[in-house]
């Protein structure tokens, strides 16, 4: 163990204490300091008994929180970065915070959410025992470019010793890490869609032989059961499979190894079903008792920063994360809201990038890469686009076929929220970017007050 590492550890721990003294969470800076002082800082840290990493375009935080929550409920101590940063500095901060000054772990299990772009920097020093990859989809075009690029980075980074847990229904994801021989797949066979049209824009031809791919069915984008009529490559069979989704009883079932267990349906969004199944798969493969995992799963909730539902008077208020710059996440959020069995919905869309719009003018290309067509749904009566890019969002929605008469815009988030007619609408949906959680909270409180006032 080098003096450099010990010095970096001491400095980072001290910086964390000082930052927390000022009321900040210090979820990234201490790690950055440690790596600045000792570039291979992560290499010197001793890892907990089990290291589980979660990556992929969408669902990392939900899955990571779920896995960490279940492991804690099973009685283990957990190092986790889900409330902080998922880049190299955030991973280092989470680990050093739960290590002794000499780098020994204080916790039994590490559950680390790792940004795909940071994979090269993290997996160079850390070999996870298990890695869950939820999906590989389009993401921020500025950072993540395209899926080929992200697949290249992930594929270059990971040790072949890691046991990978992959989404069988994502043809890009399931093909990752070919050198990793320990492979487990998860997927969904329930509610099989009728569509066999590949709507993917990212995988159309077979990566092995170049033949145009076909599909048994497609849920969205390239998520479904896909096969190549040329070389016969096909989506792998899931080892963990969601076989039944019963929204009326709020339960779903996962089949594994001939056994089927029933779990509480915390949220019916299909993307979350994949997250849930991935979480159950990794915990079972990591050796946790499946019956205890099932019991602990049923006590979990999705963190409110991702999804929340409140009833205030006659108002039903749903807040749903719709990550700006991320075309698939936003399109899925639109689709989810449209699919809910309610009428006369009012949707407030706040997906601008707060940072990109500060002394800047955000690239709007991602808005044009996002499928807005779900907002045409008859159940949606009014859409309010709020934020600096509201005019671009409105134009994109109209090009997608949304009736312009049901769209209103406002440059200001709060003024946009005030445009909601709470006498006219009782079902209100607030779609928000992850970087405006405080603003979303204030708007949620404002709507709750309005709901209570209406009741009076």
């Amino acid at each position, binding site marked *: 163990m080098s003096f450099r590492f010990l010095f970096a550890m001491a400095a980072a721990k001290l910086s964390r204490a000082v930052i927390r003294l000022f009321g900040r969470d210090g979820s990234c800076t201490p790690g950055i300091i440690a790596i600045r002082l000792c570039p291979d800082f992560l290499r010197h840290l001793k890892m907990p008994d089990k290291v589980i990493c979660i990556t992929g375009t969408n669902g990392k935080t939900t899955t990571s929180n779920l896995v960490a929550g279940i492991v804690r409920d099973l009685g283990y101590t957990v190092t986790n970065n889900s409330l902080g940063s998922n880049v190299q500095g955030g991973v280092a901060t989470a680990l050093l915070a739960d290590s002794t000054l000499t780098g020994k772990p204080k916790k039994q299990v590490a559950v680390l959410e790792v940004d795909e772009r940071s994979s090269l920097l993290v997996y160079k020093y850390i070999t996870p025992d298990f890695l869950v990859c939820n999906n590989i989809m389009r993401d921020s075009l500025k950072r993540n470019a395209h899926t080929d*690029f992200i697949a290249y980075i992930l594929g270059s980074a990971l040790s072949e010793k890691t046991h990978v847990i992959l989404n069988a229904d994502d043809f890009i994801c399931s093909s990752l890490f070919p050198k990793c021989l320990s492979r487990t797949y998860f997927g969904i066979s329930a509610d099989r869609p009728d569509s066999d049209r590949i709507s993917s*824009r990212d995988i159309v031809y077979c990566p092995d032989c170049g033949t*145009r791919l076909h599909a048994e069915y497609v849920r969205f984008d390239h998520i479904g059961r896909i096969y190549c009529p040329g070389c016969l490559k096909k989506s792998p069979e899931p080892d963990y499979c969601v076989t039944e989704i019963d929204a009326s009883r709020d339960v779903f079932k996962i089949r594994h190894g001939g056994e089927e267990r029933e779990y509480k349906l915390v949220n019916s969004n299909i993307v979350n079903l994949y997250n849930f199944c991935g979480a159950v798969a990794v915990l079972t493969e990591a050796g946790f008792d499946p019956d205890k995992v099932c019991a602990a799963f049923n006590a979990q909730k999705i963190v409110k920063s991702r999804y929340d539902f409140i009833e205030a008077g006659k108002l039903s208020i749903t807040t749903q994360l719709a990550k700006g710059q991320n075309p698939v996440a936003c399109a899925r959020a639109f689709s989810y809201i449209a699919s809910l069995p309610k009428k006369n919905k009012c949707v407030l869309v706040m997906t601008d990038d707060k940072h990109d719009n500060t002394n800047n003018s955000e*690239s709007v*290309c991602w808005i*044009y890469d996002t499928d807005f067509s779900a907002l045409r749904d008859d159940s949606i009566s009014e859409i309010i686009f709020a934020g600096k890019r509201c005019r671009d969002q409105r134009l994109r929605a109209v090009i997608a076929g949304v009736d312009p008469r049901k769209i209103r815009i406002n440059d200001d988030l709060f003024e946009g929220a005030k445009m909601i007619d709470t006498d006219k609408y009782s079902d209100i949906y607030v779609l928000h970017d992850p970087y405006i959680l405080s603003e979303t909270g204030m708007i949620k409180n404002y709507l709750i007050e309005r709901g209570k006032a209406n009741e009076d």
Partner: protein
Amino acid sequence: MKIEILFSEVCNQFGDPQNAEYLKQSCPSDTFVYTALDEEPCFASSRPDMVIMGSMSESIQRKVILKLLPLKKRIEDLIDDGVVFLMTGNAADVFCRKIDYVTEKITVDAVGLFDIDVKTDWFKRVNSKVIGDADGNTVTGFRSQFAEYSGDNSEFCFLKVERGFGFRPGHMYEGMRKKNFIATQLLGPILPLNPDFCKYLIDIAGGNGSPAHYELAKEAFDKRVAEFRDPSTEF
């Protein structure tokens, strides 16, 4: 008017397909032909009025070059005949002289309409904005690219840059143009983002459509232009 959209099933990154969608809504009575990568382009055997191609991954880019390289003479003839081409994002790179894929350690000869060389490095991502003038039209746009360009396009640029940059920081000539062949590194939604430029493009192609949802598009455009010209806006 006949408009051919090349390889839209794979050349569809970064919102670029919305160029074709916006044109379809702007010219509803015109004919749109979608050609897949495993098909022969229509322009090889008949004269379209406009050809459009959008951004793609680098592996697809190499396949597109293989597809279009044998059609170089035909493309040159159509350019001489005044056919409009709109190549956005890294579709523009396909018509440069060569592309050096640094990360993948591959170098390929591209179609070679322009004496410009491209170096594509997956660990150097460039994001920026541009406002400039194209034949009297103010054009705004965004770039997100791995590519660096070397060569002099000052005599055949697409845009004279007002703010932002062209081939590299400090360089004021963006993209390439030969008659009505336009190759720009700006990303695809360039037509809905710039409704007056869309009208210009329809006009030079001989069409008589007008930009769809013009007032909504113009309002968004005016707001963007004001932001781009605001000295406090960072580029």
